[in-house]
């Protein structure tokens, strides 16, 4: 399943999907992203709570429980596919970058 407009995920989208490979609720997602990126990336609540219903609507994540009025989400197969596509895209970006910077650009005119 392709991302609807076949656009790359933004950094926030990527990390939110990544954090939901395990069940987490809103605040946990924010904390987790901050921890794994060593505070390099932060996702604000405005961004997060706009993304969660959007991803749920698109079928990338699903709500699995509501405890103490906090919704816990988990990535779906469709979401996992989007995430894998994005990782592959990032790998290609990286590989292209490394190739050129190592001076192996065969496409130079």
């Amino acid at each position, binding site marked *: 399943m392709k991302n609807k407009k076949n656009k790359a995920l*933004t*950094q*926030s*989208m990527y990390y939110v999907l990544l954090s939901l490979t395990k069940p987490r609720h*809103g*605040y946990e997602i*924010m904390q987790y992203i901050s921890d794994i990126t060593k505070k390099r990336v*932060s*996702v*604000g*609540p*405005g*961004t*997060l*709570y*706009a*993304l969660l*219903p*959007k991803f749920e609507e698109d079928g990338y994540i699903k709500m699995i429980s*509501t405890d103490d*009025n*906090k*919704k816990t989400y988990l990535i779906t197969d469709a979401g996992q596919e989007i995430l894998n596509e994005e990782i592959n895209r990032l790998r290609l970006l990286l590989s292209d970058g490394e190739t050129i910077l190592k001076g192996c650009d065969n496409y130079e005119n």
Partner: protein
Amino acid sequence: MKIKFLYLNLTNYPYIEEYLDKMAKNGYILEKILLQNIFIFKKSNLKNVKYSISPFQYETALNILTPDEVNEFNDACSNIGWTYIEKTSNLFIYYTVLSDLEDIHTDSEVEFNVVYKLVKNQVKFHYILLPILIFLTWIQLSNIYSSPDIITNSLSQIQSLLIPLASILVVNELIYIRHFLKLNKNRQEVNEEIIFLKRNQKFYSFIMKLILFLLAIFIINILFMGVMLGNKFIVFAYIPLLIGSIFGFLYRKFIKVKKSPKKNKLFLLLLVLVFAGSLSFISSLLFINDIASDIENKSFEIMDKKASILAPISYMVVDNSYNDFNNIEYAKFISEDLANIFFNRKIKRIKANIKSRNIPYVNDLLAEKDFLPPSRLERLNLSLEDFEEYKKLDTEDAQDLIINKLLDASFEQVDKNILPLDFDEAYFTSVFKDDLIIKINKEVYILNGVNLDNGESIDKNLLKLIEVSNKL
């Protein structure tokens, strides 16, 4: 305390954020927003206050968002150090005194999407609202030129200003937010920042202030008529609003918060709307019945009392003793010219009513093939011979002729000798000469079901009416 009138919308919130920051630097922090535009600031010694206005759809009875979802977002904001102040127009306003705080929106593309989607919803809402307002404006404007009631009813007078003003505002808003959408339509695709609009508020502020002022007068008027004048009909007019609000509240409180699929909730919302609508209809009927049974045995009962700038007092007197009259409509105006306008419009209205009431009856009679007993023609002031002649004509021509004949027979100038009153103008308004409309100086009386055999009694009642009016 400082009060400012500001326009805050999804199309300009970063500019308002800047304005709030500036106010904070001058020692005023936002305390509350009333009616979307009235910003109340209080004096504060807090240093380094910073605001954040975040677009987020807020929960209403008609959307699928639950209060818990909004609360979760609010909790997350407060967890990272933002203090909630107020929400308005799908915008949540927070402040902090902490430095280096994480922003509420950290992804401009996501923020762009949220704003764009919410503004599009606003456009849809305006497109639904606009035809309704234009239709109501058309009704109100035609009432100004033709309705007698607009002169006596202050609520109608306020509405005839309020509704066109609201239409102008909605058109203005629609142009503005459509411009915003057009400006930003392709920017998202090319990863460009959203362009917000720094709006010249003068026109909006002027219209909005007028609307708020008129709304305040409207509410004061309802209270005045309901409480001071004891007008039960005012309560009746607002029954649907009251029931709608109660059901909206109950739905939000008990159904929306339930953990059930969105489809089920939407179905339940539909059920609630249908139920509330039916209940409004039934309670209105019960209310009318209640008033009818309440006045059934009363004589000279004053009801539907109203007051307006043009007609300081108007009401209806119901008399169920069936001796002298059934009811009298009374209105006193500030000038004789207005009394004349009301008098002439009322005559036009009565003629239109006679016409609309009798056309189906005439059509039924014309369609009948069997012999008609003459008693069925009495109401139309027709003899059987005349009717047989009309029946030979084309149906539409016959209908026109019969109705015109009925109107001629119904409207007859009242002879000064019949009514022992010093009136300016008076007409009978029914075939049986039991309905009258009378104008005396600045006053107009509309009498129904009058027993003219007892002229003295009518005079006595009118005098009693004048006496009562003078005391009111």
